């Protein structure tokens, strides 16, 4: 009944050997070609010179990485937590669940706040996308997507539309109407087309552009009106799981994290990767920019959250504890950047002191893993969604 599509297999003439075979996309010098599987193997070994084997090249790559880390360390001055010693410690933190949003029939996978600081859009595994007025806990709109596992949803900056996508490999935009009789699904607009599941999406500064991340290892920038691909970003070696846009007014960059343990910073205009960080031990589930825009935090399946500084080009803090062994699925900063809220797969939310690197508080309440977490635009509260079918607002 649902039109789920998985990896689309294209059949046609290979760009290299011209035989009719199933094709795979291959990128040579940023140009996309389609090769058959035999030619892919040939091409991979073609680049080797004499006396070079794959093993020796791998070793060379590892040693170069080591040298890069050494050089990075030379430019390093002093540790963040050392400097933070002169900042006062935070007192006891009391945060409670102030609202519980019930209505999803299955695991809540993603949520986003509206700029009006009270509306929320959330999506779940059963294909339902619901827009709530979280203050009154009323549901304002509900859409049923034709696919299950809607892993990404986003609110438009104007508050007039939402975008969502998942296993259907597409990102669809629904304009929000206030006419109760009108069927929202009728006005749906398909914007993005990927070759694998959609893992994250976000509007840029306006309603007209969407940035998406997908399981096919790429991110892409789309024009909503025409559905045209404006820019694509290749570089991740595996599924891209998350992305976040830089907060600056003149900002043109975004960061993405993937299953290849890398977090990469991209320039939206040129499509180039500007910086990349590879210190996590496992998939990066969530990335979020620090409010000033010159650092970002990442949460990963290796049970740690890390803070990366863009100007110093290195990791500056690790937030981990021996008692935490489950992966972090979602992270967000408080408005001042002093607190980092992280939702974990052990059903808890840990609140970290960003500067000192210590845990301030641990919040219990969810009955299954926390899958998504966002701080409200005015910083007064944050919302967490979980596999226990509910969303909670904490303040």
């Amino acid at each position, binding site marked *: 009944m649902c039109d789920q599509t998985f990896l689309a297999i294209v059949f046609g003439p290979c760009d290299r050997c011209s035989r009719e075979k199933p094709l795979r996309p291959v990128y040579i010098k940023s140009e996309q070609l389609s090769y058959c599987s035999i030619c892919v193997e040939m091409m991979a070994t073609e680049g080797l010179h004499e006396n070079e084997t794959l093993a020796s090249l791998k070793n060379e790559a590892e040693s170069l990485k080591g040298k*890069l880390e050494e*050089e*990075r360390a030379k*430019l390093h*001055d*002093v*540790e*963040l937590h*050392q*400097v*933070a010693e*002169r*900042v006062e410690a*935070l007192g006891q933190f009391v*945060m409670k669940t*102030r*609202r519980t949003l019930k209505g999803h029939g299955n695991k809540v996978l993603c949520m986003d706040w509206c700029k009006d600081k009270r509306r929320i859009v959330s999506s779940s595994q059963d294909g339902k996308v619901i827009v709530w007025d979280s*203050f009154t806990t009323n549901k304002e709109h509900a859409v049923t997507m034709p696919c299950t596992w809607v892993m990404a949803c986003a609110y438009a900056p104007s508050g007039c539309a939402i975008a969502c996508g998942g296993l259907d490999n597409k990102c669809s935009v629904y304009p929000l109407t206030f006419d109760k009789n009108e069927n929202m699904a009728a006005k749906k607009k398909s914007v993005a087309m990927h070759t694998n599941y959609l893992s994250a999406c976000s509007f*840029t*500064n*306006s309603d*007209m552009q969407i940035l998406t991340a997908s399981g096919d290892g790429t991110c892409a920038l789309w024009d909503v*009106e025409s559905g045209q691909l404006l820019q694509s970003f290749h570089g991740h070696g595996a599924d891209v799981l998350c992305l976040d846009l*830089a907060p*600056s*007014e*003149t*900002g*043109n*960059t975004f960061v993405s994290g993937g299953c290849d343990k890398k977090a990469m*910073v991209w*320039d939206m*205009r040129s499509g180039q990767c*500007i*910086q990349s960080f590879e210190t996590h031990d496992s998939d990066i589930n969530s990335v979020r920019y620090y*409010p000033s*825009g*010159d*650092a970002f935090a990442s949460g990963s399946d290796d049970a740690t959250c890390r803070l990366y*500084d*863009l*100007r*110093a*080009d290195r990791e*500056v803090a690790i937030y981990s504890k021996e008692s935490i062994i489950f992966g972090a699925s979602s992270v967000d900063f*408080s*408005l*001042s*950047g*002093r*607190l980092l809220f992280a939702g974990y797969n052990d059903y808890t939310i840990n609140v970290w002191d*960003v*500067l000192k690197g210590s845990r301030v508080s641990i919040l219990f309440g969810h009955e299954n893993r926390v899958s998504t977490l966002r701080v409200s635009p*005015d*910083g*007064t*509260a*944050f919302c967490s969604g979980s596999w226990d079918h509910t969303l909670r*607002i904490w*303040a």
Partner: protein
Amino acid sequence: MAVSASLAHGIHILECLRGASQGTGTLQALSLGHPPLARVSSALSHLPDSVSVPMKYGISEEEALHLGNLLVKHGYIYPLKDPRSLVLRADESPYRFQTPYFWTSTKWPATELDYGTYDPGRDTAQRRRPQDNYNLLHKRINHTWDFVVMQAREAAKQRRKGDRIVIDCQEQAYWLVNRPPVRTGLCVAPGGDGAGCTALAGRVMGRDECPGAGPWAKASPCRYLKFNEQYVPHDPIMSGCLPSNPWITDDTTVATPTKLRVERWAFGFSELLTDPLGRAQLLDFLKKEFSAENLSFWEACEGLRYGEQSRIVPIPRQFLAPGATRWVNIDSKTMERTLEGIKTPHRYVMDDAQMHIYMLMKKDSYPRFLKSEHCHSLNTAKKKLHRELGRKKDLLC
């Protein structure tokens, strides 16, 4: 030629040139726009016979440029027009000799001590709080504090304005060589292989505008502390919010624009623009100053960047054409480039002009707005709450 040998030659040349230029008093004369290349090669060919220096006079232009470049990179000559870029340009831009006190050949270690008496914040528009810098410095060089204070006193002595400017330029050039900003590819490794360091330091760090990212870019942790201090009072979870957190008390009455909100506009130009109320206030202010077209132009360019292509059509007619009603003040080079670009329009064709106008507003209108806006808000705020600030108001307005 090995670097050290060429430097030795360079030092000889410099001493000859300085000797030939009638002494240190006319350093300013040397800096008057004569092409440095011509100067170097002509000086080389007119060296006084009394100077018996074992070297060839006839050197090719290419080599002269390379040698000159090395001299600039190592801090013997410094450019006047673009002080942060230590390269020798083969054009009319003026250069000045560095005083021998600061020559790299003296091999004085550029220590924290010396850096302590030099205040890098002096020449940047954004002033950090002097107390923080002071405290940090005190902590780091506590053991030689008396010496530092003595040196600082010496440096702060009143000198003639001309001399002070020259000394400032010299100091700045010296610290640019010895504490190069992390982001640039200027890293001259003291002795040894400079190539590795330059290649890595030259990595593209992204197109963010970062004012005053000089030597302090290395001290990145301090930036976090500063940001933290500035923003924590505005963080509702950390410091509460007025009148109360709506999620806790179920009270949705929104407080009228508080002093806190107005304070936040002073943190940075982007804060002012992102707050709709702030943007409206800025527009009112600009209207009074007859420069409202700047903000309108910026908004139109933003619309083009994020919206449909057709939005570009009204922009040249309204803002860029010579007799336009809302003509924006852009320099001729940028205007030329933009008009060229409009012939093949795309989403980012207005970027240069937009950035120019953004910087213009940020550096010019924004500071004036802050000074005047404070007056304005103080007038409307409750007198008993702002009695203390009222005293400041009398001074400002």
